C-alpha cells in the first residue's frame, strides 16, 4: 500500500457548506484520507481492456412514456418548509 493520500479539508468543508473547528478538521482529514486510501487500492486493479461503466449491470433504456400524473397538493409539498409565503418556500435572500 502506498503512502496515505492527502486532501484539502478546508476546500472539502467549503464544498459541503459546513464549518469545522480545528480539532474537527484534523479528525476528519485523517478519516477522509483513509477513505481515499481505499480508492487507491481499487486504482491498483488492472482494468486494461475493460470498458468504463458506472453500473454493475448491463441494463439500458429504462424509460417511461410521457404521461403526467398529479403529484402533491401545494400544502403537502410545502409541509417541510419552515417558512412559507403565498404558496412559495421562503429562504434567506440569495442572489447569485
Amino acid at each position, binding site marked *: 500500500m502506498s503512502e496515505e493520500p492527502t486532501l484539502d479539508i478546508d476546500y472539502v468543508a467549503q464544498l459541503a457548506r459546513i464549518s469545522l473547528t480545528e480539532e474537527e478538521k484534523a479528525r476528519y482529514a485523517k478519516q477522509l484520507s483513509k477513505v481515499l486510501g481505499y480508492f487507491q487500492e481499487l486504482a491498483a486493479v488492472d482494468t486494461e481492456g475493460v470498458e468504463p461503466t458506472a453500473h454493475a449491470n448491463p441494463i439500458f433504456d429504462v424509460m417511461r412514456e*410521457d404521461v403526467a400524473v*398529479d403529484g402533491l397538493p401545494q400544502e403537502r*409539498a410545502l409541509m417541510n418548509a419552515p417558512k412559507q409565503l403565498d404558496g412559495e418556500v421562503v429562504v434567506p435572500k440569495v442572489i447569485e
Partner: protein
Amino acid sequence: MNKFEPVIGLEVHVQLSTESKMFTNAPYYFGAEPNTLTNAVVMGMPGTLPVLNKRAIEKTIQVGLLLDCEIPRQSKWDRKHYFYPDMPKNYQISQYDQPLCVGGEVEIELEGESRNVMGPHRYVKLTRIHLEEDVGKLTHLGDISVVDYNRAGAPLIEIVTEPDIYSPEEAYAFLTSLRSTLQAAGISDCDMEKGQLRCDANISVKPVGSAKLGTKVELKNLNSITGVRNGIAYEIDRQTRDILAGGTITQETRRWDADAEMTYVMRTKEEAHDYRYMPDPDLMPVIITDEWKAELAKGLAEKPFDRQRRYMDTLDLPYTITSVLCQEPELCTFFEETLTIHKNAKAIANFLVNDIQREIAEASHDEDQKVLADFAITPGILAELVALVDKGTISNQIAKEILPEIIKNGKSPATLVKEKGLEQSSDSGELELICQDAIDNNPKPVAEFKAGKEPAINALKGQVMKATRGKANPKMVDDILRKLLS
C-alpha cells in the same frame, strides 16, 4: 478605427414541451399556482428514484437530427452538485461526458443590402446538446427570497455553440433561426418571456487578426432576443474600452441589466463553482439505435430556411413575404393547407403575412398574445376569399375590407359578399355613366391626361371607385375611362 474583434459562444437552454417532467411523472406547464406541479421526486425526498421521460429523449434526438449533430450510440446521466435553493436535492441531473448530441450546426442569415434582398447565409458550429432537468424559480423580495418548484425537473436541453459567432447581430440571427427551427418541429414554444428559451453568452475580444482568443466573460440574464444583442454589444464595447485604457479583462461572470443597459460583475473566477460531476447511480444509460433514429427522423418538420428556399423557388414567392411567413410555422401550415384548396400562392401569402398577421397583432396584448388558431378563419375560408377575387366577383380592396370580420367570425366570404351587396359591379352601362360623371366633374385631371400626363387618370379612377364604394372592376373602369377620353 476599432482594432479589436469579438468572439462569442452561446449556451442556450430550451424547455422541451412535454406533458410530464424529465425524471418523474409530475405534470409541467407554465402559469400554474406555485408549488402545485411537484411530487416526492421533484422535492428531493429521500428514497425517491428518477425514471427517464422517453418523449424528452426523443425530442432531444430530433433537435440533434435537425441541427445535423452526431448522435452517439450511448448516452448517460450525471449529477452536477451545487448548493442553491432552486434545486431541493442539491444536485441537478444533467449529462457530462456522454451527451445525446455532439457537434452540429445552425444556419443563420445575416443582414442583406436592404430589407428586400436575402442576406448572406452561414452555418454556426455547435459543440454539443445535452438533456437535463430545469430548476425551480427564485423570486427576490426585499430581504427574503421565495422559491416555486413547479419548473424544477422540467426537461431542458442546453445547446452549446463553438466560439463561432462574431457580432451581436450574428447572435441575434442565431437565436431567431434556432427558435423558428425548434418551433416548426414542435420541440418547444421557445417563449423567452415564459423562460422557455434562455441564453447565456461567452464573450471575448482580441486584436484584429490575432489567432489567440482573449479572456472570456460569461454574460447572464439575457432575457429577450433583443437583450442578447444589446447585452453582447455593450460587453464588447466595455472590454474594448478597458483594454484600450490599459486595463486587462478578468475572467468573470457578469449580469446584463436591461433597464440600466449595462453589465455588472456577479462572480469572479475564484468564486467559480466546483460541480463535482459524477455518474448518476440511479439512472441507466440510453442506447440510441439506428432504427430509433430513423423512426424519429421520419416525423421531422422542414427547417424554416429550407422551406423559404422552396417557397421562393417553386412557388415564386418574393423574399420579403417568405422571410416573414417562414418565421411563423403556424402561418406556414395554414398557408400550405389553403394552397391545396386554391392555387394562388402569392395572394394567399399576401393575405396571411399582411392582413391576417396585422389582425392577430391588433388583438394581442402584452399579457394575452394571440395566435392564428385563436381566430375563426380556416384555410377553406381564406381559399374561398382569394377565389372570389380571382374570379372577379369582388375586388382585392373589398377582400381586404371584409377580411377582419371573416377572421373573427369565420363567416363564408361568398355569403358575406352577397349579404352586403359587395359584388364587383361589371354592368358596363351603369359604369359608363359613372365614368362620364367623373370626367364631367373633374376637368383638371381630364385636361392633364389629354396633355399626355398618364398618371392623371388615377384621379378619375379614384372618383369612380368612391362613387361605387369600391365595387367597380378596376380593369373595366380603366378601359371605359380610356375609351371615353380618347
